């Protein structure tokens, strides 16, 4: 298909066929991961720079594996702090990377808009957003779609219950948009203080009662609860959170019997998720990690593999 997006910044302007195309590409990549020798020469001679301003293990490693399996040359650019702090600005870093001939830059940054900003400054390189502040994490959303799609097939008409801190979650924003575009309905639950003001505009609904939110759900997606939100007074205590919204076997009973349990990781056992369901048969948490590599290989291939004009 003709691929019209120049970068992967967020999924706001993507359409269902775009998402579907990446899912299908990911399936081919997934097959590669089962081979004894995983490396293919698809991106030989391409330079990919991983530019991580924020601590990240799984996203960075996942991208790096994907790049290496496709035989790209990989550079991990060490960067720390904000671009306004000591050292060079993001603008100068961008120009430096382009001067070095980067074909793609993967950026993780604490500031909303950092990936968009980088894309505006780079004339040639493709930008992959590895997470910008609480705004967007498109590759996570794609890997979540892929995980669910691979397991249960078409996502049209499926119900996704998402529980937790939606307000501060880039994963939630991207996943709500992605699942909605695939035709799923998304119901959010959690304390009202952790919800954005206009959830309907994102394509979701809000139900403060987690039991009714989870009722007949095909997918339960749990979001990480950070202790610092308690310190900020967003909710009274982690213990109360777990009692009211923590996901456990009792809550899982309200969902469809074969419902998938997902979480972007790292998980807080005993807070947003109880160990019985995190380690249970319906948990997809490790499957998501594997999907992450496949989906990032698919994206790198579509953007850098010569398929694109």
């Amino acid at each position, binding site marked *: 298909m003709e691929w019209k997006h120049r970068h992967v910044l967020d999924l706001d302007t993507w359409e269902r066929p775009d998402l579907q195309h990446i899912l299908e590409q990911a399936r081919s990549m997934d097959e590669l991961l089962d081979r004894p020798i995983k490396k293919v020469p698809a991106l030989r001679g391409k330079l990919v720079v991983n530019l991580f301003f924020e601590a990240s293990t799984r996203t960075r490693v996942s991208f790096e594996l994907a790049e290496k399996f496709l035989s790209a040359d990989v550079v991990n650019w060490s960067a720390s702090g904000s671009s306004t702090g000591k050292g060079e600005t993001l603008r100068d870093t961008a120009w430096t990377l382009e001067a070095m001939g980067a074909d793609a830059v993967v950026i993780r940054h604490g500031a909303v808009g950092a990936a968009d900003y980088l894309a505006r400054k780079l004339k040639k390189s493709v930008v992959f957003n590895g997470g910008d502040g609480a*705004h967007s994490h498109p590759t996570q959303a794609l890997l979540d779609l892929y995980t669910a799609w691979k397991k249960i097939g078409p996502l049209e008409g499926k119900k996704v219950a998402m529980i937790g801190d939606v307000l501060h979650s880039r994963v939630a924003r991207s996943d709500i948009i992605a699942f909605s575009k695939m035709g799923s309905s998304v119901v959010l639950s959690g304390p009202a203080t952790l919800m954005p003001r206009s959830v309907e505009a994102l394509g979701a609904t809000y139900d403060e009662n987690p039991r009714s939110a989870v009722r007949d759900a095909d997918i339960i997606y749990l979001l990480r609860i950070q202790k610092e939100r308690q310190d900020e007074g967003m909710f009274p205590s982690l213990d109360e959170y777990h009692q009211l919204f923590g996901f456990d076997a009792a809550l899982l009973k309200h969902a469809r019997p074969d419902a998938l349990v997902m979480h972007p990781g790292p998980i807080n056992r005993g807070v947003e998720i109880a160990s019985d369901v995190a380690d249970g048969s319906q948990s997809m948490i490790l499957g998501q990690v594997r999907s992450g590599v496949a989906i990032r290989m698919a994206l790198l291939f579509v953007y850098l593999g010569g398929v694109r004009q």
Partner: protein
Amino acid sequence: MKILFRNGLLFDGTTLSCEKTDILTEDGIISRIGKGIDDEGANEVYNLSGLILSPGFIDLHCHLRDPGQEWREDLLSGSRAGAAGGFSTLVCMPNTDPPVDNAALIRYLLEKGEECEGSRILPSGCLSRERAGKTLAEMGKMAIAGAVIFTDDGSPVSDTNLLRLALLYSSRLGVRVMEHPEDRSLTSGAQVNDGICSTFSGLKGWPSSAEASDIFRGVSLSMDTGVPIHFTHVSAKESINAVRIAKASDCKVTCDVTPHHLCLDESMVIGSGYDGVFKVTPPLRSASDTDALWEGIRDGTVDAIATDHAPYHLDEKDLPFQESSFGIASLECAVAAVLDEWKRRKEPCPLERLLSLFTSGPARLLPEKWRTLGLIAAGSPADLTVIDPAFEQTVDVSKWKSKARLTPWNGRTLRGWPVMTVVRGKIAYSLIDRVSGGK
């Protein structure tokens, strides 16, 4: 020095006449208004056929960054920029470094302002000492030195007792208190409107209630003391409603709105891919808030349009959204942006109302001695702005006289521009050729 302006459509501060009128200025004062004034003795003559001749526009709220932040702007660049934007008078805000909280700095601004070739500079002074919001600044001395407004702009006066004392203390000085309405406990860490923009961006939302609640508080104090209060850069529907209700109860409350809140909304923050050029306090609001501001203009709730021109160096502004500085620079296109938007909205109010919000509206909020700046009358200062409602021009920020190098309107073609600015009887800016003179 005599200058004759011929055949202008006269807007006298209240009414726009459709008859051609001549104005003669003499040594900085308007000496004659009439038809067919003889050009004998005039040093310069300008033909303003088809153009609106208005009292000089007054910007009640701009940041000229002088003293102490001259890499962003200074009085000279700001004054030139103001004139190029059609403003004959600029009221500069006191949140400088050091803050303008004493008579010596008021005098500095007035003296340096005298040397500027562009807009007239009228300084505002801090309400509190060091703009720290703790104790009253020497408002009496500043009033005598020439301060025209007291404000801690950039910050609200969070201490309610201090705001009450400031109203009482300033009431005999003839200088109005201007409050930057914001409840800081609701805006800590906030970056964008609490609504669609905060929802999509994940940036912390700045709720309308943060502004409206401070206005309700100020209105109570004004009613309690009987002293007028002015709210600046009012941006939200709830806030406009609060002002409207207060005015209906005979409270002496006034407010201004900015060109960017009239012309831009939060969807542009998202649509631009979170371009920091759209980052401002209070944030760009929803489209319905923008509509409410225009309704406030139409029904008389709004008293002035003030730019809140907030220039920054490129390096402080050209950053990822979350790291960019708050503030929109607009001095040189603000009038055009508003006229263009007014046209685009199919003229939601009479043109004369819109013009009054740049002239007699803000002039009424200044101390008694400056109120004649907002009208055209024989004997009043020869501060004039000429508007060409049909002129189209593309905004090119790289050519600005301001030091700002980013503005949301860059590259936009706007219709309706100031084409001449006269300050104290001198041509401070002009796109119009002189027809004769030079005697």
